[in-house]
């Protein structure tokens, strides 16, 4: 009797916790929608999404989010272009080539990379990387989209490497043996059989890597220079959506258009992250068939 009562209590508690987290997510989402959509009572949606000027406190204010979306895209794309090849190569090295201490060393190194707080990476970017980029390209400032991409690539790597590694480990040994027994070299085996076989998992890894990068705030704010202009080159300062929200939320007057506009940016970010996660899920799911 007591036993049964206890079982039911535990079950109910677990169910309640699950429900609670779902409810919290829904509430956050509703709040975001309510505050964000309030902007469009005074500012047309096209001015927001299509406008190329973000002057939230000038008179009249301009809430064109395009430079911020493009800023996020440029920095993210750059980070992915830098991180993906290196990450896939590292995963291949860990799972197929390295043995013994080299494998352990690399795995530990990448785990440590994941453990570095983003503000520390941002600080390193400012103190070390930015002066270096300024010097190398002879720029007026080293705080550029490229600087942000490099720092973000370092942050995305651990995610991409570890998920790619899992995807490679899930490829049946028979494929490797078949390729080698046909006279393939190790590299041919990896590039022509292993990578295609692991492709869904690798795509998911890249999606999650992008998700990690696009939501990052602190480091980007520190190293990208924060100029809200449409980027024409990766060697220009840019400003991302996340950095904008973080930097301006403190000074925006509650209930003002500026305040609502920051929430509207939040909706855009949320939508992008959601789509990325859904895509990653789709790829991972597809892999299981």
């Amino acid at each position, binding site marked *: 009797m007591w036993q049964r009562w206890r079982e039911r209590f535990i079950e109910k508690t677990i169910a309640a916790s699950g429900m609670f987290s779902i409810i919290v997510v829904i509430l956050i989402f509703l709040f975001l929608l309510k505050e964000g959509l309030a902007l469009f009572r005074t500012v047309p949606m096209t001015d927001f999404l299509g406008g190329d000027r973000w002057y939230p406190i000038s008179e009249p204010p301009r809430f064109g989010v395009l430079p911020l979306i493009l800023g996020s895209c440029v920095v993210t794309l750059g980070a992915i272009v830098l991180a993906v090849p290196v990450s896939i190569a590292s995963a291949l090295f860990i799972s197929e080539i390295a043995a013994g201490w080299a494998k352990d060393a690399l795995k530990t190194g990448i785990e440590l990379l994941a453990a570095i707080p983003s503000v520390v990476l941002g600080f390193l970017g400012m103190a070390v990387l930015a002066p270096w980029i300024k010097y190398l390209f002879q720029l007026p400032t080293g705080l550029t989209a490229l600087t942000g991409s490099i720092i973000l690539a370092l942050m995305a790597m651990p995610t991409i490497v570890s998920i790619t590694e899992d995807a490679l480990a899930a490829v*049946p040994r*028979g*494929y490797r*043996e*078949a*390729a*080698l*027994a*046909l*006279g*393939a*070299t190790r590299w*041919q085996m990896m590039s*022509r*059989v292993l990578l*295609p*076989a692991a492709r869904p998992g690798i795509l998911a890894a890249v999606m999650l890597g992008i998700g990690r990068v696009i939501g990052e705030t602190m480091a980007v704010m520190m190293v990208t220079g924060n100029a809200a202009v449409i980027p024409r080159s990766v060697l220009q300062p840019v400003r991302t959506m996340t950095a904008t929200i973080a930097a301006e939320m403190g000074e925006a007057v509650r209930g003002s258009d500026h305040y609502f506009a920051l929430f509207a940016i939040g909706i855009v970010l949320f939508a992008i992250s959601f789509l990325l996660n859904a895509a990653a899920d789709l790829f991972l799911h597809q892999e299981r068939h």
Partner: protein
Amino acid sequence: MSQPKLQVEHLNLSYGPFHALNDITMAIAPRQVTAMIGPSGCGKSSLLRCFNRMNELIEQARMTGRILLDGEDITQTATPLVTLRKRIGMVFQRPNPFPLSIFENLAFGVRIHELAAGRAIPQIVEHSLQAVGLWDPLKDRLRRSALRLSLEQQQRLCIARLLAVQPEVLLMDEPCSALDPIATAKVEELIHQLKREYTIVIVTHNMQQAARVSDATGFLLLGELIEFDATERIFTAPRDPRTEAYITGRFG
């Protein structure tokens, strides 16, 4: 007897402390089917994997002795593995087509060995599929994933994938063990046709299969080659009492 295709001399193989093959000496005749039989764990697969040196993927495996292919020692470190494995191909126990299209599976070997390019590749694909009787059923579905084929068709495809690189020897490690009896019969029929052009070494723990498809048979027991002779002779008048015990089903 003509020169053997493969000559095995005092072959020993160990996995770390475990001695898996003990002083094997035998000669495999060209364009014949040679079967290796014996109970599970006696070293049949290990022996087969010496011929294409796949055991070298296993870190602790050590091989001594000589294996001559057309009179040439292939156990030397200088032997290029890529060419060796092109000449001596292998079919595995579980069909293992690549998770690529049927066409790409067949083109794989042709591409890595640069045997042909451009328009010649589809021709090789067609020939190889024809050789295993898959051309007619599959010719309109070459772009489909090879994983969607039945197990029997997958195994045939794996054989076709080998034929595409024009090997000389086919090693088959229990090629029918994942197949049902009807599919098995079809693959055995295929093996029978292939021996006109290829030297075949087949491992099986199915004695009826050895009796049906092979010309010569070797009986392995605990890493030792107990007896090696014409199949007819092994199955009708074995010299060693252990062979007799095995083929009459008294152990194994």
